[in-house]
């Protein structure tokens, strides 16, 4: 981010930016930066708080009024308060009453996963009725197709490094992101659910079959020597902050 500022400013256009990691900005020294104490992924602080977001923008844009010499690094004076509806642990929208909680075989896990996907779809449809916006769709696959892709991959039924004209490693990564988007949209359909990033992440990675399936996908990637599959398995499927759940 700071590098882009540097190159664009060198071409004669004034730049200002938001900084999420102050230590990086101190090193890179972009022309103008406003450091904010918000979580990665939320550079404007708090969803659906337009007044707060406008205030962040005003602070960042006012840096454009500075005259040389630069660079300028300011700290935004507020934390992103009030962004959470903390309702305790999330209530999973799927009834696991009839589903064995600790599948010991891949077959059982994949059956649980398909049941979970089926149940999630109902809530996803409700979420879509509430909101005109959907963030899933980057893989081009629907929930059932994603489940089938992961099942076929785990069961070693996909022969080549490509599928449907896409690199398999890319398709697996994009499908994983879409699957999470489906699940997060589905859980959001429940009234009063938390909007807290950490709570939602802990729910997905700690409580869903989908997360356990993604871990199986990760392990299968690591069994393939190709560089792109190794990269996917090591870095691109499960967040570092959640890997502790899957370390054996």
């Amino acid at each position, binding site marked *: 981010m700071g590098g*882009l500022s540097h190159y664009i400013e060198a071409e004669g256009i004034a730049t200002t930016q938001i900084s999420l990691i102050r230590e990086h900005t101190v*090193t890179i020294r972009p*022309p103008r930066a406003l450091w904010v104490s918000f979580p990665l992924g939320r550079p404007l602080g708090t969803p659906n708080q337009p007044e707060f977001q406008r205030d962040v923008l005003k602070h960042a844009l006012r840096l454009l009024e500075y*005259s040389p010499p630069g660079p300028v690094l300011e700290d935004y004076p507020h934390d992103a308060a009030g962004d959470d509806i903390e309702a305790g642990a999330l209530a999973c929208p799927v009834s696991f009453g009839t589903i064995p909680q600790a599948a010991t075989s891949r077959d059982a896990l994949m059956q649980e996963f398909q049941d979970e996907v089926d149940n999630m779809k109902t809530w996803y449809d409700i979420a879509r009725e509430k909101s005109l916006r959907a*963030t899933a769709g980057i893989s081009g696959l629907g929930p059932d197709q994603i489940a089938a892709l992961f099942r076929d991959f785990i069961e070693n039924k996909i022969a080549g490094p490509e599928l449907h004209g896409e690199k398999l490693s890319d398709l697996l990564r994009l499908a994983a992101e879409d699957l999470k988007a489906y699940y997060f949209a589905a859980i959001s359909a429940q009234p009063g659910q938390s909007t807290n990033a950490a709570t939602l992440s802990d729910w997905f990675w700690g409580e869903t079959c989908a997360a356990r399936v993604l871990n199986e996908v990760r392990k299968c990637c690591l069994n393939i020597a190709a560089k792109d599959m190794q990269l996917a398995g090591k870095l691109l499927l499960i967040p570092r902050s959640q890997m502790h759940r899957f370390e054996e």
Partner: protein
Amino acid sequence: MVRLNQYSESERQHLLDLPCPVYESSPFVGGLQLREARVALISTAGLHRRADRPFGVGESGYRLIPKDINPNDLVMSHISTNFDRTGFQQDLNIVFPLQRLGELVKDGFIGSLAEYHYSFMGATDPARMEQEARNLSAIMKKDQVNAVLLVPV
């Protein structure tokens, strides 16, 4: 609230170990009157229109985002799985505050918005983005852009 000292030790160390470019010069364009600013928004969140090709590993290019884009047409394919996407899912403005900037234009805080806005994918070495950024600057000048707001993810 997130500061580096609030991350786990391993996460903090990972972030601190990420390579950061160091530049010998410090370009700095003279002070701008905000009411005269024509602003382009650049995100490094790997955003693009639904029909565009998703970002891939090591990609240094950008995707074009028209000023009047339908919010439902904007998706994210950043390769990192280590940041929250649920905020983006709840509110596009949390990552790409185009609507908020439009409100600041209506309020008279800034002059106008560019016709086009842009997204890179921030997990790429910035040095590999240099030529694209310089080419993009020439395009933005033709759009009368004199101020750029960059938003990371």
